[in-house]
């Protein structure tokens, strides 16, 4: 299309025009720093991760166990007060294979974000994390996976206390 256009109208701009100050602009960077209170439910969840346990919350009204835990069931609006330890195994609900990092760098070894339905939680309730120790081409929906934890002394009560999830079969082999 553009090959057919011979005469481009307007004023061409080069990067050097900006560098040499021929084109003016103002640069500024926001200093936005926050310390989010994790609160009751997520506070419990993170404390659980530090101990190597994934906690869910039970809604007796909906007869569901949700993860991560919250203080209110979004479906019936009843308060959730009971925390339930779940397995650190689960099933891949969905995944993607990403060849671009979060800050837009091309990578050869892809990252594999996945939603993992946690064993012990109700169907459809999972956590978002990453898969590892796996050939990207072999990942499937429905694949059984297990958490790979940081060493206990390095855990800090964060979602990154789980390093990644790997296929459950491999764990059994070892």
């Amino acid at each position, binding site marked *: 299309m553009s090959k057919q256009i011979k005469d481009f109208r307007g004023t061409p701009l080069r990067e050097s025009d900006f560098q040499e100050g021929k084109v003016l602009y*103002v640069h*500024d960077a*926001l*200093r*936005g*720093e*926050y*310390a*989010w*209170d*994790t*609160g*009751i*439910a*997520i*506070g419990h969840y993170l404390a659980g991760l530090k101990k190597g346990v994934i906690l869910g919350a039970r809604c007796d009204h909906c007869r569901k166990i949700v993860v991560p835990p*919250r*203080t*209110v069931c*979004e*479906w*019936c*609006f009843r*308060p959730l007060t009971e925390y339930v330890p779940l397995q650190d195994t689960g099933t891949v609900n969905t995944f993607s294979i990403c060849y671009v990092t979060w800050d837009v760098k091309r990578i050869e070894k892809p990252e594999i974000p996945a939603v993992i339905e946690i064993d012990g939680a109700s169907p459809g309730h999972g956590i978002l994390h990453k898969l590892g120790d796996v050939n990207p081409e072999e990942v499937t929906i429905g694949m059984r996976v297990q958490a790979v934890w940081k060493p206990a002394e390095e855990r800090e009560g964060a979602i990154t206390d789980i390093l990644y999830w790997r296929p459950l079969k491999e764990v059994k082999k070892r």
Partner: protein
Amino acid sequence: MSERVAIVGVGWAGFRPSTPYQSYKELMYEAAVRAYADAGVDPRRDIETFVTVSEDFHEGTSIFDEYTPDQLGGALKPVHTIGGDGLHGLATGYMLVRTGRFSLVTVEAHSKASNILTLPYITAYAQDPVLNRPLRLNPEYIAGLEMHRYLYETDTTPEQCAAVVVKNKRNALLNPLASFAADLTLDEVLNGPPVAWPLGRHEVAPLADGAVVMVLASEEKARLLTDKPVWIRGIGWCNGPASLESRDWADAPHIREAARLAYRQAGIRDPFQEIDFAEVDDTYAFKELQHLEALGICLPGEAGLLTEQGATEPDGEFPVNVSGGSLGVGHLLDGTGLARALEVVLQLRGEAGPRQLEDVEVGLVQSWRGVPTTSGVVAVLSN
């Protein structure tokens, strides 16, 4: 179609300088549960649409709309988030009811100010990035500029501004939701450390965390739900020119215009005579005076005199900020206007406890979005 819209439920949570025991979601949930219990409604069954008010930079999460439905009972229902002050949310909820499409609407606004570690930088980002921000001033200088010109043009005195602080912090002593109640003297306020002269530290409302939820109903629904509806009789909002170069530094014409819209709708001709009390923005002490004048409660330059004479005290002719205002209660960022409205609702219902005013029928509430804005809302409520 519903001609009248009522507030039928109010709830609150937090109202403390910090709330480390709750996430913002849990704060909202607590306020929502209280509002729904107050209204006698089940949000999953009864509430048809939800309006939340928040500023992404205050939350530290962009597209914050996505994080509001669950804890209000709004999952898989029509929800939208607007930028503004909480009273902008009240106006939006009002309009949603008036469309005739919705008969029960939830309005929410909150503050987790304690979680924002660099708030002055965030506020500074509200300035023009090319013309003003490069000067690298703490944004409270804008309040200093406004106050100076306001004092200059109206002959209002620093003592009169300080009297606002004394009154509001003393009023707050009777308000269990107030975090910054105090019994100060005029001299203590005047001799406090300066922030942006002529503005002193005691004249700046301290920040607090908190959430406010209100349930709005059509007249038909309101009659079914409560025998104490609080009617939104008029509501208006206005934005002035944002420019820090050519705005009216002494007056608040945006509040004057918002008030004109609200009064016209409510049929108010003489606000001082027809309205019994007011909760107005007092983010800075002089703002209470400037706002009262813009609201037409008195002429420019008179609000300081009225305050000195005690007319705006709880037992005065026109009580202002019986709650303690933001100076006494704490400033709730985007939730501030709804916090002021909460007091008006409680007063009109006769549920304000030891600070209850006698024989009040019509209350005024006004909000301002803070520096550097010229953005505000005015509402007339009645029982």
